[in-house]
């Protein structure tokens, strides 16, 4: 996935000289996860900018650059580091279009490596995506494959509205995927196309017995659970990768729930008021009569993300996902 993200940045910067990258340690180091590696040599220090350690300053100055007419891509080093920049995102990035008659949106991308599973110290493993999905004016997306990472980041950069780009760091380097290197759309005339890449869910596995709905780093776990359901119970689960967390792709979700009659939502973020609650509500509101069982949630817990010695107890495991699936199947 890191290579996909790096490719997207490279292609966007090559095609559009308004695009620049800024954040802590993004230039000379190439970012702590190396997502921006090599860009400094190619595009120079005016377009790949190491900033002071100040997230409100990073997001706030990026908003100013966007107002001027540039397309900044901000890297937040780790999930929890975004909290000092939260006000700039909520009060300004999200409202700039609204405050300017829809004419001057804050066209920034805020990339946030998020989630646990990398044995990181305290406060390096949060999943804050629901906080952003709750803020009107933002788009919130999360890829789970290298190809989606490339395509969605390219779209996010050229998209007029501010995009919170959640990057599941646990699967940054999990698995390889071959995909055409050519951008999926013409970067120089991306208007109108980008929304499609930032609003549609993906069917990661077909099936008609159970809808398994997730995003980010828990998608691979859902795929594994689906394979085990198939071999152990002969149940074929349809795995839906949300990709867009706001807006949710309601048609794909409801269609999956209707077709399968059973649904389980999986995410790593805490349960209460998490995206699972929204997905579950949408399905119950629109497909209740097609359901054989209530929608089940398999999520993180309403506790601080634990110290890493316990993180595997917290992150939804394949076994927990299977238990949730069995509960719905046996209801």
């Amino acid at each position, binding site marked *: 996935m890191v290579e996909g993200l790096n490719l997207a940045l490279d292609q966007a910067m090559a095609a559009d000289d308004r695009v*620049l990258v800024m954040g802590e340690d993004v230039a000379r180091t190439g970012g702590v996860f190396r997502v921006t590696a090599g860009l400094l040599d190619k595009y120079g220090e*005016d*377009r790949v900018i190491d*900033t*002071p350690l*100040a997230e*409100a*300053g990073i*997001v*706030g*100055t*990026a*908003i*100013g*650059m*966007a*107002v*001027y*007419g*540039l397309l900044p891509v901000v890297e937040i080093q780790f999930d929890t580091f975004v909290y*000092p920049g939260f*006000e*700039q995102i909520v*009060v*300004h990035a999200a409202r*700039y*279009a*609204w*405050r*300017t*008659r*829809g*004419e*001057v*949106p804050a066209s920034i991308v805020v990339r946030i490596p998020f989630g646990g599973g990398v044995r990181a110290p305290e406060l390096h493993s949060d999943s804050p995506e629901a906080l952003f999905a709750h803020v*009107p*004016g933002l*788009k919130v997306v999360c890829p789970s494959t290298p190809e989606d990472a490339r395509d969605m980041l390219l779209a996010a950069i050229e*998209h*007029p*509205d501010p995009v919170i780009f959640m990057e599941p760091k646990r699967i940054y380097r999990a698995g390889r995927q071959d995909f055409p290197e050519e951008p999926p759309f013409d970067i120089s005339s991306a208007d*109108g196309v*980008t*929304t499609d890449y930032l*609003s549609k869910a993906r069917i990661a596995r077909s099936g008609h017995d159970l809808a398994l709905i997730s995003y980010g780093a828990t998608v691979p776990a859902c795929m594994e659970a689906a394979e085990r359901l198939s071999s152990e119970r002969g149940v074929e689960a349809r795995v839906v990768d949300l990709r867009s967390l*706001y*807006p949710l792709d*309601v048609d794909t979700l409801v269609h999956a729930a209707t077709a399968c009659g059973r649904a389980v939502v999986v995410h790593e973020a805490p349960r209460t008021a998490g995206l699972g609650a929204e997905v579950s509500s949408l399905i119950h509101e629109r497909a209740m009569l097609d359901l054989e069982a209530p929608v089940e949630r398999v999520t993180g817990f309403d506790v601080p993300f634990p110290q890493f010695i316990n993180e595997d107890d917290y992150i939804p495991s394949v076994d927990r996902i299977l238990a949730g699936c069995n509960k719905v199947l046996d209801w």
Partner: protein
Amino acid sequence: MTDSLRIIGRDDLPDNELPEELGEKDLLEIFRSMVVLRVFDERAVALQRQGRLGTYALYWGEEATQAGPLYACSERDWIFPSYRQNAIGILRAVPASTIFAWWRGYGGREGFYNVREHRVGPICVPIATHLPHAVGVSWASKLRGERDASLVWFGDGATSEGDFHEAMNFAGVFKTPTIFFCVNNQWAISTPVHKQTAVEVLADKAAAYGMPGIRVDGFDPIACWKATHDALERARAGGGPSFIEAYCYRLGAHGTADDPRLYRNEAEAANWKRLEPLARTSAYLKRIAVLDDDLESELFADAKKSIASAVAEMEALEHPSLEILFDQVYASRTPWTFEESLRELQSVERPPEVKPLGAQPGPPSTGDADAPVGPS
């Protein structure tokens, strides 16, 4: 104010030499701008008292800190107001009716303007959060090889905020052409400046960010112009940002819902009022034979006429449609949830039209609600 830059004399201090760049025409334009701002402000307070605007943040007495710096800017320079400079856009061709409409609770095309078209940032309500935007704009200009600078206004209270520090720090590190214009009116609602900071002179804070800081007489528009002019020249020559502290006093209330009698001695305010910038500038311009009573009356009459027609335009606005809630949240295709929400609203009877709340507690006015209301 012993070390402040000052051109116009006061009390027993004589006039200092007028900057040679300023001719008669320039001085009159700065004064005219102050008159327009004053007339707008007094009208807005009166309209609020009559229940024709919502709560309003007045700036009576701070016209020098607005008209002076603005006149030093070129038309290409970006300016970022806080709510205390809410009407500054009208000097950059934003219709005054738009600003009135914003205070009357309108959004959309009625209450907001295109910041890129006017190079005037949105009226910033939260404290100090627009400072990074001003830095970003001027930084982008520099990165693109342009000469556009930015100027951002904020108060003494804003210097306590983290965004102030981060913006000043970025500007210093990247040497952005940014002018930080701090209006030290000594009060943040009820909190006096000595409870915001342990520093005596706010301009001293500039040193911590590697930029020059200067204190000017905030009731003197020419001093405000001069400091800004010099800072812009330095910025355009690649010298980076500057911090200007305009030392003055908040002669009015924080806003129309505030009553300063609860927390400060109004005799102190009355004492400062001797220095209020319109009367002081008028006297100065008459002293140097740039202005006379007839021309002054004409400037006020013109301003009152244009502000009156802006009020009429604002009051002629129709109640906004329901679509206004959803139309301009995104620049891209509207999310599906909006259609559903609009349908829900359309399926029930609409609540009656909202009216501003009308007269609220505040400092005593002069009585007649139609008369100009200052902190007299």
